[in-house]
């Protein structure tokens, strides 16, 4: 399974903080977004492909061509606003 985490405005827009989907057939992050779009609805694709959306795989910042494998944790979130 791939563990998908959503933070901040993305969590509210998609109304989920966590979703787990089977890793089968998912090679990278953009492929994961495709699968989420197919299983959860088009809005997932629109939001997760948003221009400013940041991606972390296993808590390391990456781009959407990052390869992923079974057991990985993938997080999507907007630009940060701490401090």
């Amino acid at each position, binding site marked *: 399974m791939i563990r998908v985490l959503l933070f901040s405005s993305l969590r509210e827009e998609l109304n989920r903080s966590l979703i787990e989907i089977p890793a089968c057939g998912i090679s990278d992050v953009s492929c994961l977004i495709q699968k989420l779009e197919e299983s959860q609805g088009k809005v997932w694709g629109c939001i997760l492909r948003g221009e400013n959306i940041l991606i972390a795989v296993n808590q390391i910042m990456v781009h959407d061509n990052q390869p992923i494998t079974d057991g990985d944790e993938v997080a999507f979130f907007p630009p*940060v606003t701490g401090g």
Partner: protein
Amino acid sequence: MFLRAVIQEEPFNAQSETARIRDFSDKIGGIVSFLGVVRDLNEGNEVKSLFLEHYPGMTERQLEEIARAACDRWNVLAISIIHRIGRLHPNDDIVFVGVGSEHRAEAFMACEYIMDYLKTNAAFWKKEQSVNGSRWLVTRDNDLKAANRWTSDSVSPDNEAEY
């Protein structure tokens, strides 16, 4: 080297954190600290409260990495970062960054560097509740510019002088 990076809901005591840095080593000749506080007015909105969220595990590691990067860059002896999460109100402390070094110049620069990177690179998000409703805040261009200074060739805040 003293390095502390903590994320907590509870209030912190900036004075005792500063003392903790001071007491770490007799070599410390100066401490620069920054205290971030919730404002009552943001972009014209009267703020009732802020909600701060983070990515447990990742954000703690990012703070440590920022602190280590500052240590690699300047000769500092102690760094303490505390960031609060959860519900905060105007006048509440949000963030503390304290840096102790032999000479003040390095502490000033390392403290500013840590805050600039914390604001633009550490996984925290603020949601503001104001009289006009609630909204997630967006990254300010000035914060991005501030962080970019440390990598840009055109403007370098680096100053190797010993005061």
